[in-house]
């Protein structure tokens, strides 16, 4: 690397930044100094990029859906794939710019202060944040939330790998509790241009927020494919499933967490169904709201999920079960996935502690 970035050089304060771009372009020529003389070709950059690619279908579809919902709201008809996508792309792009600029600036700065290399983790976080917020979120709010989540959710713990909560979800939680008016209801999911009129009787509320018969007005297919109002990336269960296949195939995310989360959701959903708490069939819970997106991309975050294989089953089940519990029994919140995962993150170390302690007790008893 250029000398001015090295210690004592004029631009040393940009060392971590320069290093990040440098290693982005080419694998560094560093050799092993200690321990194993050969290393696996995989690094975190590769793992993160695969996770990111898995989220691309959901993101692309989400952009199209932003345009589609806008069209529905303003009385348009037809699919208009390119036009709708372009409309959505232009609306989502500012969210991406804000999420990446604010988050990466903090990430690069703290890496420099700590004298470490920049961790790739934020590339994934920044990719997910615009997908889990309403399209109408004001940019300054998003910037504030991203800064809060990155600094207090991650950097104070020591950076990526040390954090307790998923930083992307923390961003959403910050928005949700600080600016509830902008984060729920029926207006925030549709992005309109200034001066546009909504068609009479149109509601942009998500299916989960509707009561009674209105919930049935959305069909299985529109819920599954995702042509419903919602946060940008979470509506299409189909696209999320495509991502899930890639994540499970490559082993980047844990299939155990995904499976047990689905099991937990079905379990509570079924109890609610036979107990009369809801009329929604338990399987339909899986394709509504942020459940699928949270299960596939958020709950499986290797840093904040349970570490032990046995713990993953418990952790996933807990998330699925709490999510549906909130949906069914808490009239204040239409959707429980964000809180369920954050609670799961909180309990993950405890779950691991119990699993490991039991394992150790069993092991030393046997001896």
């Amino acid at each position: 690397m250029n000398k001015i970035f090295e210690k004592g050089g004029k631009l040393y304060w940009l060392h971590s930044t320069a290093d990040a771009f440098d290693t982005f372009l080419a694998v560094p020529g560093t050799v092993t100094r200690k321990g194993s003389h050969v290393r696996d070709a995989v690094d975190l950059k590769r793992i993160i990029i695969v996770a990111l690619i898995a989220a691309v279908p959901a993101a692309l579809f989400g952009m199209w859906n932003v345009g589609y919902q806008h069209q529905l709201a303003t009385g348009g008809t037809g699919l208009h794939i390119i036009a709708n996508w372009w409309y959505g792309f232009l609306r989502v792009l500012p969210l991406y710019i804000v999420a990446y600029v604010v988050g990466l600036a903090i990430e690069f700065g703290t890496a420099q202060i700590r004298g470490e290399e920049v961790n790739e983790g934020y590339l994934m976080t920044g990719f997910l944040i615009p997908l889990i917020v309403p399209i109408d979120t004001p940019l300054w709010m998003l910037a504030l939330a991203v800064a809060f989540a990155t600094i207090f959710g991650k950097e104070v713990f020591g950076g990526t790998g040390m954090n307790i909560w998923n930083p992307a979800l923390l961003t959403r939680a910050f928005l949700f509790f600080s600016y509830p008016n902008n984060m729920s209801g029926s207006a925030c999911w549709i992005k309109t241009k200034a001066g546009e009129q909504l068609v009479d009787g149109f509601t942009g509320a998500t299916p989960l927020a509707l009561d009674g018969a209105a919930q049935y007005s959305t069909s299985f297919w529109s819920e599954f494919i995702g042509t419903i109002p919602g946060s940008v990336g979470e509506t299409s269960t189909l696209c999320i499933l495509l991502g899930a296949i890639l994540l499970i195939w490559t082993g980047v995310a844990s299939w155990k967490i995904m499976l047990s989360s689905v099991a937990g959701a079905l379990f509570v959903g079924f109890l609610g169904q036979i107990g009369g708490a809801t009329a929604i069939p338990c399987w339909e819970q899986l394709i509504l709201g942020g459940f699928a997106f949270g299960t596939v991309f958020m709950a499986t975050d290797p840093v904040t999920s349970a570490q032990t294989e046995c713990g993953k089953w418990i952790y996933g089940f807990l998330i699925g079960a709490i999510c549906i519990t909130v949906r069914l029994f808490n009239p204040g919140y239409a959707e429980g996935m964000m809180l369920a995962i954050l609670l799961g993150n909180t309990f993950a170390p405890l779950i691991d502690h119990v699993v490991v302690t039991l394992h150790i007790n069993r092991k030393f008893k046997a001896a």
Partner: protein
Amino acid sequence: MSQNIVLKKGLNIPITGKADLRVSKAILPGIVAVQPGEFKGLLPRLLVKEGDSVLCGSPVIADKKNADILLTSPVSGKVKEIVRGEKRKLLAVLIETDGEQTCAEFKLESAEKLDSDSIRKAILASGLWPMLIQRPYGVIADPAVKPRDIFCSAYATAPLAADVEFCFADKVKDIQTGVTALSKLTEGAVHISFGPGESALQRITGAEFHTFEGKHPAGNVGVQIASIRPIRKEDIVWTISLDGLAAIGHLFNTGKLCLRRRVAVGGPMVIEPSYVETIPGTPVSVLAPFYGGDAEGLRIISGDVLSGRNVGAEGYVGFFDNQITIMKEGTEREMFGWIRPIRYRQFSTDRCYFSWLMPWRRYDMDTNLHGGPRAFLMNDGYYSKVLPMDIYPIFLAKACLAGDIDKMEKFGIYEVLPEDLAVCEFVDPSKNNIQEMIADGIDLMIKEMA
């Protein structure tokens, strides 16, 4: 009693340059080195000075804490130089060989007749005692202790490891005597673990046999102990290599010290990988024909690529090692390496790449780190899938990092040596030095428990 143990977890590193089963050269080097730094737990006290004549088996260095523990010269000749490093730390004693290999005579009765005390004294006097490694901690065995068991692995799974049958089939007699002698030093038994298939060594009597089958590190003695009878707090077991058993047997059979062994010279950069017959302490420079004479840009490792030592072109064959691996220093930068869909030349266990689809391939690996150091990001399960032991490797590594003795004990620090977690270090996408963490943890345990 015999057990058949199949270990499912593990990883064989598919590296090129496996040595052909032939001895291409028998070497009696002009100079050999006795290096006290190879022996963990030894505080060296020099017993010779420059110009002294030594025989094969003459003491050269003693342990300051226990004067009975000796390092002896593996050749006859003259002490040429005492090499010291910073703060006059003793690095090596160089002995110029006289080419005659005159041996010091140890007058011994047959191992069957001797009692445990005489056997212990004979092994100590010959300088073969440091072959016995104590677990936990991997230090030189304490002669005052009677270990629970003694373990030996006759199953080589390390990358490019020397072939057990080829190296030891004609040493059955010596190994038999070694087993007989050592079985008198333990309360339990001498355990030998074989790989799948027949072995000439299975003719040996007086030892407990086990059969293992699995990928590396299934051949590591530490992993085998954990499957046979794990080490718990207060337990002390010893381990020894087959070379050690053969040398001890040879001592009781002939009364002479002989450390001659077959050493596999392999690795991607080796021209005609094959075996040499030599003694530990041989300068690796005598192996120059194997790498074409120019060591620039090469890494020469005494031991295997996972846990061997980088000795450099000026180094020496290690006391415990029976393989030399030569590979390229991976200083070249790979453009967009991590983002390329397929990196055909690189090996990865991770399914983010595709080498798992081609299990038959072997790779010209180099020493590139393939990434920058990061905090642990992946789950414990990512690492434990290559570790066939009942422990949580990352929990253990983190306990070592934190220096938490209580947790280290619980997570199994007594059962492991750094080499056992070498495969976890290989697969780590965060490029942490897990072996170093474990080694530091063990050092802390030794300090705190002393």
